[in-house]
């Protein structure tokens, strides 16, 4: 079986990337492994796409669609699935899993793969030079084990040689100061099949457990249960201590890779497992973990034992405030900072959404600037900007909010006799409710807030205030960097491959990512024409049009009604999104659905460019249940057209309503592809991404 397939000399980048990747693309960003620390942030964003390690990728990266494998399966099925791995030459199977190492050298898959391979075959230098690549080595060990299992079944000889290699090299590795090597070394002691299986199961279990730790809501009860079950199942084969050790080691390795180099914190979590691992390794570990406090392991264990039912309930997204519920509206009003007045001529269909007079809030809030002590000035400022509409767009709003929170955290000091974690959480809560009063939250903001609150809750009470603050600040910085800035860069890299010379691209509204894509393609010297479609009342297209024309792109400008006319010549439609919901619905600027629909009718592909942090597990079928209403007055007056003033005193007619919707929901069948930093995926993969990466977003 082994001889059938020779070890490859040319190593394809065996990347598990969910979705659609063009052939011959350069990897999103190419880095030297030695600069891994500096680029860790990017790496984390990318390589989070490659977390599954149970199945080796037999396909290559050129295949257009890679189906994300099952992550958690029953032991039997797991074995079946791993058959091909075992039957491969071990070195190849090792190669295949190399990208499953998380976080560190993400983008440079081919190089890492090479180095891993080299490492196994003798010279371990490359692998050893990665700080904290234990996750990878863990997987290496594991798959080596699988190979062994298979080989034992088939040929005795192969079985002997394969573990031999692993053992020897693993040993070298351990000597060479890498922590991950310890795991490999540890693993090679397992010789019986049952034990090997046990490790595997333990890994899976621990992974599930780790997921449980880190996520805020807790959908993963089923997973957890399974994990627990498998652990129980193997009780006869391994001792409890051993199992615990493996589990801990797993968690540690996972945490290390996630930490992107800077955190001694999560390395510390291996503390529980260290004693049972070989002495040599233990020494190594302890020497490393000194620089970090030990609370992570403790908290995670505590959380694992939470009631699964509770977790499940928590995971259902909170129902939104319904404004046709009088009691709740009254209650909310009493708490409110901003005085809201019910708008006249409210649209009956949208009673459940806030419809307030626009205009009086801003001067009111401005006058109260010095009286609202409980709200940090920077948050206040951002709130006013939301209200006045100077900041729009999911990314900008989210970024501004996080920066304001950052300021607030910097200036924060725990009041006496209060716990930082609780007090800061409630503080953030009050800021958020203030911002909601100014303007309802976008999904991106909601996700960011969830992340921040989660980080605050994760703080251990032992941590000093300054330490906690600096951690939170770095968390916020990292969120902005990874989820917005770097993610946008990767999306641009992906989407630019879809632009070819002579194309006519249609864009609608103003999306920063789409703008970046067009400008990048233009910088690359691609010759294309842009159709800028615009609609009232925001006319954001004009802003974008100005920017594009300034840069020298040739543009065509039109309004949304003419979409059927211009769609004939359009090659591809690029759209942004405010949020992508779990059923594939794209929630975006009103009009996006019209554009997508007409494009669909004309058989023009629709690409939605959206960062993965805007994905949400909520579902929505129409644009009415949850939406946002803007100021109706902007509909009645058309700027630049003085003769269109038929609706000047519209509010005096009680039968007349003006509806200024902000968003609409594009059904998923109009969307050809969603471009995220995780790759280009069909809309049906959105729930997968939400499930696989959504929870991971909050693990750092």
């Amino acid at each position: 079986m082994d001889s059938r397939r020779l070890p490859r000399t040319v190593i394809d980048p065996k990347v598990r990337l969910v979705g659609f990747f063009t052939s011959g693309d350069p990897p999103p960003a190419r880095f030297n492994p030695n600069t891994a620390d500096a680029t860790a942030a990017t790496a984390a964003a990318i390589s989070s796409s490659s977390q599954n390690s149970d199945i080796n990728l037999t396909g290559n990266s050129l295949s257009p669609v890679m189906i994300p494998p099952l992550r958690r399966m029953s032991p039997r099925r797991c074995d079946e699935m791993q058959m091909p791995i075992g039957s491969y030459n071990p070195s190849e199977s090792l190669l295949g899993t190399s990208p499953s190492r998380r976080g560190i050298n993400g983008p440079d898959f081919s190089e890492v793969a090479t180095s891993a391979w080299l490492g196994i075959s003798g010279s371990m230098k490359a692998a050893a030079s990665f700080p904290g690549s234990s996750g990878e080595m863990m997987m290496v060990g594991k798959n080596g084990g699988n190979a062994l299992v298979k080989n034992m079944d088939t040929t005795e000889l192969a079985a002997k040689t394969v573990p031999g290699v692993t053992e020897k090299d693993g040993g070298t590795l351990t000597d060479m100061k890498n922590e991950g090597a310890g795991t490999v070394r540890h693993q090679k002691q397992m010789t019986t099949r049952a034990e090997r299986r046990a490790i595997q199961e333990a890994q899976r279990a621990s992974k599930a457990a780790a997921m449980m730790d880190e996520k805020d809501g807790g959908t993963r009860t089923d997973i957890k249960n399974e994990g627990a079950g498998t652990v129980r199942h193997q009780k006869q084969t391994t001792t409890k201590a051993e199992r615990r050790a493996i589990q801990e080691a797993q968690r540690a390795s996972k945490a290390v890779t996630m930490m992107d180099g800077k955190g001694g914190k999560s390395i510390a979590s291996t503390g529980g497992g260290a004693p049972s691992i070989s002495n040599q390794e233990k020494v190594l570990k302890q020497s490393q973990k000194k620089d970090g406090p030990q609370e992570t392991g403790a908290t995670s264990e505590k959380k694992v034992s939470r009631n699964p039912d509770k977790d499940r309930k928590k995971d259902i997204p909170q129902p939104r405030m319904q404004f046709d519920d009088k009691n709740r509206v009254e209650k909310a009003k009493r708490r409110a900072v901003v005085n809201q007045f019910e708008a006249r001529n409210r649209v009956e269909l949208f009673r459940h959404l806030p419809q307030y007079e626009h205009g009086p809030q801003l001067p009111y809030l401005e006058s109260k600037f010095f009286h609202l002590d409980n709200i940090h000035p920077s948050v206040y400022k951002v709130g006013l900007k939301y209200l006045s509409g100077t900041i729009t767009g999911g990314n900008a709003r989210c970024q501004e909010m996080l920066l304001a929170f950052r300021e607030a955290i910097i200036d924060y000091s725990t009041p006496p006799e209060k716990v930082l974690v609780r007090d800061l959480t409630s503080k953030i809560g009050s800021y958020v409710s203030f911002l909601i009063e100014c303007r309802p939250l976008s999904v991106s903001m909601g996700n960011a807030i969830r992340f921040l609150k989660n980080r605050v809750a994760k703080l251990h009470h032992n941590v000093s205030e300054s330490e906690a603050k600096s951690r939170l600040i770095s968390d916020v910085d990292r969120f902005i960097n990874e989820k917005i800035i770097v993610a946008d860069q990767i999306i641009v890299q992906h989407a630019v491959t879809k632009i070819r010379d002579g194309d006519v691209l249609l864009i609608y509204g103003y999306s920063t990512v789409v703008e970046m894509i067009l400008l990048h393609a233009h910088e690359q010297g691609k010759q294309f024409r842009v159709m800028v479609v615009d609609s009232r009342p925001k006319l954001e297209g004009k802003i974008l049009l100005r920017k594009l024309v300034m840069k020298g792109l040739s543009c065509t400008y039109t309004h949304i009604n003419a979409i059927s006319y211009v769609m004939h010549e359009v090659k591809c439609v690029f759209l942004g999104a405010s949020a992508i919901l779990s059923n594939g619905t794209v929630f975006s600027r009103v009009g996006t659905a019209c554009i997508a629909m007409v494009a669909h009718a004309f058989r023009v592909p629709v690409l939605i460019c959206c960062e993965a942090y805007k994905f949400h597990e909520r579902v929505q079928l129409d644009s009415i249940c949850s939406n946002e209403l803007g100021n109706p007055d902007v509909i009645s007056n058309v700027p630049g057209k003085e003769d269109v003033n038929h609706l000047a005193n519209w509010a005096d007619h009680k039968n007349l309503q003006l509806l200024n919707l902000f968003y609409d929901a594009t059904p998923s069948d109009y969307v050809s592809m969603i471009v995220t930093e995780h790759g280009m995926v069909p809309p049906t993969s959105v729930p997968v991404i939400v499930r696989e990466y959504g929870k991971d977003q909050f693990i750092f």
Partner: protein
Amino acid sequence: MPDVQTLVNDFVLKLKRRKIEGSQASAKQTAELLRSVVSQQRLPYINQATVLLDAVRAVGEQLIAANPVELAVGNIVRRILHIIREEDLTSTASAMEGLSLSANSDDDDNYEREDHQALSAAAVAAAARSTLRAPSLQTLLEGIPESASAPHPSSSGGDSEGKSKSAERSSRSKKLKHDVIEAINELIQDIETCHEQISEQAVGLIHQNEVILTLGRSRTVKEFLCAANEKKRSFRVFIAEGAPRYLGHVLAKELVAKGLQTTVITDSAVFAMISRVNMVIVGAHAIMANGGVIAPVGINMVALAAQRHAVPFVVVAGSHKLCPLYPHNPEVLLNDFKSPSDLLDFGEFSDCMDFSTSGGSPRLHVVNPAFDFIPSKLVSLFITDTGGHSPSYIYRLIADYYSADDFVVRRRSTTS
């Protein structure tokens, strides 16, 4: 006739400058102009119909060329040509009856015989034409009694043959012209009253608490909705404002004045709102023979959204908008472009355009089309002044109004 020619020139100029708004106005004015053309046309004794047809065709060609996009003009020209043919046919038929009577009475009259032969040739041609034209219930019902009951002057065959014949001829020539003008008057009246006839059907189509969506402003739609409102139906109307002219605002104002529950939405919110709409009612610019519709820009988007949500898409239009042509690439060939200043103010982007480097061609284009084409499969129903019709029936409806010879309006070349 110089005075007719000046009228025609004035009208051509107006059409060219797009001074006439709306197909109803242009249809009516075309009919009025052609009526004066017919009334001033001096007719010879023989081949009166041909002369009249040629005169109308000559004027019609100019009018159509002046604004080929305004299909109502062409429609009216064809309608009037059809009217002339019909009237000619009826008078010929009645003449034939009279001739056969007179031929029986005195066979020896050569002139009469010649005339008879000539007329019979014309009758054969007319019969051939009528067989070419699909038989219609209308012609069956209208044609037979008229010819049967028409009292014929020549039936009184007597001694003073020549005298009576010339009197008969002059009366016939007058009769043809008179009939044609009468029919044109009827047509003009039809155009004027088409709204009432259409809106009579409103109650049968709109139920209580219905939610109706429309885009832009169409007078027919307004009358339709108001008529239903007057019959004490209470329903709600969503009006998409209809960029770039925002006539939806005008319609909203008019409907609110009539006491209708009205909500104005932006054009971009059409897809968002269509899921709560029971029916889409829009006006049209023209209805093509294949059931496709040329309508103000943006309506194709509405039609697609309505199709997605299985909302009935109803087009209300007077029969003067029925066009006997089959469209080919109508989005481009039957479209008109409005001024870019509707979208961008003049010189708004001149500051950021570098004319020196772009090699003469501007980097910024502004597209502002006037019309959309809606394929027939997106239309659920047409409401015309003759009742409701499905898109597949339109070709048949057209056969009632137009004769197949007139689909291409072109002056006969001088050689023939």
